[in-house]
């Protein structure tokens, strides 16, 4: 009896604590997503009214004049992404194939470790590295350098995701192919990679979405451009650069356009992220869990 009465308040307190901590963690979870909701709300609120046909198709107006658009920046971003894809996809995917299908444990450990470290290298550092590598020898900022820096940043991302999804392909596929006498490299290209294709494409799209929003590395490579430019040897406009330049400018009309540009960039990035979720429902994903 004595023990029970002594335990009772303790028990109540434990239950209270349980409820308090559960609510506290819930509040934290809500706090975490608050900035996302706020950012999205303000972008739509401030940017939506500025989005019209002119905004997508026109060049920026000179300082002081209102109106104009950021058509060149939108096109520039897609050109830079295409270049980045040309650099990042082959190297990343084939490197991922090596990690998953060949390689010794120790070498693979070192490559994975180095790739993870590269993923953590600040984007601004990539910018000055490619500046020294390409802009200085070529005597000028260029879209080429901008594409290369984004492509380099994609490599470790694509390599790691490719390796991960290839590992999900059941070994039976490989063994069956080898048992039929198919060369290993053919079995990889014709059986293993197609089986994991959706996962690989997901990884590539996520990497593209990630570098699409990068500003810092482009500041010293693609530089930005107020005019239409299709030459890879000349500076090129990009959406994130334009947003940054407009945001730090003192003009209200440019601020308005920064909001609109940011809304477009965010929609581009978020629809890619949400879209690949449906793509990513890979047939092997279930087996893992």
């Amino acid at each position, binding site marked *: 009896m004595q023990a029970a009465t002594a335990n009772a308040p303790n028990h109540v307190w434990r239950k209270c604590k*349980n409820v308090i901590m559960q609510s506290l963690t819930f509040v934290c979870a809500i706090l975490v997503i608050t900035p*996302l909701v706020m950012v999205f709300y303000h972008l739509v609120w401030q940017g939506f009214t500025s989005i019209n046909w002119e905004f997508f198709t026109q060049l920026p107006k000179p300082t002081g004049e209102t109106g104009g658009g950021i058509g060149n920046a939108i096109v520039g971003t897609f050109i830079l992404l295409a270049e980045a894809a040309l650099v990042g996809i082959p190297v990343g995917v084939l490197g991922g194939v090596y990690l998953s299908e060949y390689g010794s444990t120790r070498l693979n450990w070192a490559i994975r470790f180095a790739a993870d470290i590269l993923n953590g290298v600040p984007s601004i*550092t*990539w910018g*000055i590295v490619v500046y020294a590598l390409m802009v200085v020898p070529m005597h000028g900022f260029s879209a080429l350098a901008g594409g290369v820096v984004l492509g380099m940043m994609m490599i*470790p991302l694509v390599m790691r995701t490719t390796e991960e999804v290839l590992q999900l392909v059941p070994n039976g596929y490989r063994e069956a192919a080898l048992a039929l006498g198919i060369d290993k490299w053919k079995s990889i290209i014709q059986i293993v990679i197609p089986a994991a294709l959706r996962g690989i494409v997901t990884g590539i799209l996520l990497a593209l979405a990630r570098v*699409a929003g990068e500003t810092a590395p482009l500041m010293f490579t693609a530089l930005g451009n107020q005019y239409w430019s299709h030459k890879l040897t000349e500076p090129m406009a990009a959406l994130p650069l334009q947003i940054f330049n407009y945001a730090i400018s003192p003009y209200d009309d440019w601020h308005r356009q920064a909001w609109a540009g940011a809304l477009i960039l965010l929609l581009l990035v978020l629809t890619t992220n949400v879209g690949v979720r449906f793509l990513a429902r890979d047939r092997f994903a279930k087996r893992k869990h």
Partner: protein
Amino acid sequence: MSTEGVARQRSPDFSQSRRQPTIVKNSVRNRFGDRAFKLITLVMALSIFALVVLIGIELLGGSGKAIHKFGWHFLFSSSWDPISDDYGALPFIFGTIVSSAIALVIAVPISVATAVYLTELAPRALSQVLIMFIELLAAVPSVILGLWGVFVMVPWLRSHLFPWLQDHLGFLPLFQGPIYGVSMLAGGIIVAIMIIPIITSVSREILQSVPGLQREAAYALGATRWEVTRIAVLSYAKKGIFGAVILGLGRALGETMAVTMVIGNSPQIVKSLFAPGYTLSSVIANEFNEATGSLYPSALFEIGLVLLGVTVLVNALAQLMLKAFAGPIVKPQN
């Protein structure tokens, strides 16, 4: 190893078969395709090391002049004067450390609590929705968060949070002095928003990898849900969560655009968190394209080298900690 041994023992039986010639012929042809393909993929995989070396060489090459001129003094000098060509990184190192520290103080409790909520406490449907939102937050480009920071967050901080902090915690030197809005604290808050998704999702994976037996044992002893989480899950996952925090720190140190837009960009070392600061990454972002002469760009390269050194060390530590944590848990499952 053992399977190879078996294959080797059996191989003489096959080699004696009558089909041997065709097999040999095939295998010679196959070998070439296989070797070529393996070589190509190997070169692609090794490009990772090439990139690491490239970054190191270019940054060292670029900063040669500044290293030669200032030596170690560069790290401890607080002068940043392009006119008299005298450069020191101390205010930027200070700003990077302080803004990252603020970010960790804000982000760590919130992220870990969120990870706990998502794995241990939340209803499944709700946790899936929240996880999606958190992953989307991670995908928001830095420059967009910076834009929002400048036009929405900073004015709010200036008119609401900072005066409130000054009224209630003004006795601390940290919360004294004039309020501009753009400040070290604003930089720290925006970095916190950027690293919360990373710390949360890595912590969540760590918590998920805690064996179910661990929880069941604690429930069997009559523990409440929170007690199970605290005693059985969190204490078990402590090291892994620490790794997640260090990973977040690595991101915080290198964060550029959003910080540059809200921190005020003033190279000074002061106690007040309301005063503007400057970080390693934002000084590069702001001044690199305008740096003329030979010593000025070189000093900025050296800033980049310092930034790279610190982030690589921190990231390597984080990866080693996370791998050390994943090791013992993953192995028994395989």
